[in-house]
């Protein structure tokens, strides 16, 4: 290769490597801030600040959703299978919100460790299948576990 071109090739590699390193270090340094939410385990460990807006993310515990019959107030537990945090929300929940599904709730943690949520978002997973297949799968699962 022509020496001038070789020099330019080295320059191009240098640009790519150097910018990757710079951005990599910045994102590594800010990794805590890039996370959208705290999992319940980090909140239980006291890593999340109280009295200021945070987000909590995890799975809604099966059978934990308690709806107030007179208002839109709803209470549910969020878990990451290591710790569980309770969230309270007043308002309309997204369609995909249900027990055993992912959820991200934004709000303020009160002194009792309960999240007073102002916004609840459903977090769905990457699995897609037709309803019939889902039914067949859950039936097969029930038969296998004998319930």
């Amino acid at each position, binding site marked *: 290769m022509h020496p001038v071109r070789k020099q330019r090739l080295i320059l191009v590699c240098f640009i790519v490597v150097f910018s990757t390193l710079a951005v*990599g270090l910045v*994102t590594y340094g800010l990794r805590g801030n890039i996370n959208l939410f705290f999992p319940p385990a980090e909140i239980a460990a006291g890593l999340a600040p109280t009295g200021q807006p945070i987000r909590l993310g995890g799975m809604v515990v099966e059978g934990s959703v308690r709806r107030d019959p007179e208002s839109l107030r709803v209470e549910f537990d969020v878990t990451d299978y290591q710790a569980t945090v309770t969230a309270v929300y007043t308002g309309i929940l997204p369609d995909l919100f249900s027990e055993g599904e992912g959820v991200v709730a934004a709000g303020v943690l009160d002194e009792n460790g309960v999240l007073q949520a102002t916004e609840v*978002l459903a977090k*769905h997973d*990457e699995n*897609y299948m*037709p309803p019939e297949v889902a039914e067949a799968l859950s039936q097969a699962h029930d038969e296998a576990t004998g319930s």
Partner: protein
Amino acid sequence: MWTWFHKLGSPPWMYRISGRILAILLPLTIAMLVVGAVWGLLYAPMDFKQGNSFRIIYFHVPASVVALAGYYVMAVAGAVSLIWRMKMAEVAMKCAAPVGAALTFLSLLSGAIWGKPTWGTYWVWDARITSMLILFFLYLGVIVLYQAYENKEAAGKACAVLSLVGMVNIPIIYKSVDWWYSLHQPATIRFTEESAMHSSMLQPLLLMILAFYCLFTCALLLNMRSELLRRGASTSWVRGLAVN
């Protein structure tokens, strides 16, 4: 090998060959887009959780995948134009930017519209969505930077450097859902294991992804042809086109 490389750098040759490629690829692309869209929208089964709103995936995922791949095309063309001072590579880089920007825009907009019925919000500042927005600004940056320079040689160099620097964003977008807690779910289509999607839904999606790759190629070639004509406005091969 090198004669081929030199031919690739010749505007009249490129113009002629791209015309022949487009004559075949363009009808094929449109057919694939129509078949894929009809298949996905009307014949694929609906999702067990999301119902019919999941059908947005047939536009959102292909646009996103090709917007990312298109950035590599732009950055590699930029690198070639820097190292070998190849004009054709500079034309490719310049012409890839608006196509990539349009696809990134489509990805962001369709994602926002999809977010409302599934997540419950149009927009959230999570790592995947924010890094995708940065990709959009990188594409726009290349377009604007090129326009900003009077001297087109300097413009080409500046854009090539910007697209190379921005390349670091692409793996970040890919891995953002694995590295950080985000609202966006991880990848459905996987190369190392079975995809997390039933085959009756996956087949039209794969067709749409292929169709969008072809769409990118067609749009890039069409843009390059238009650019080659303007750059060669005073040359004999462009003048020759007017006679026919």
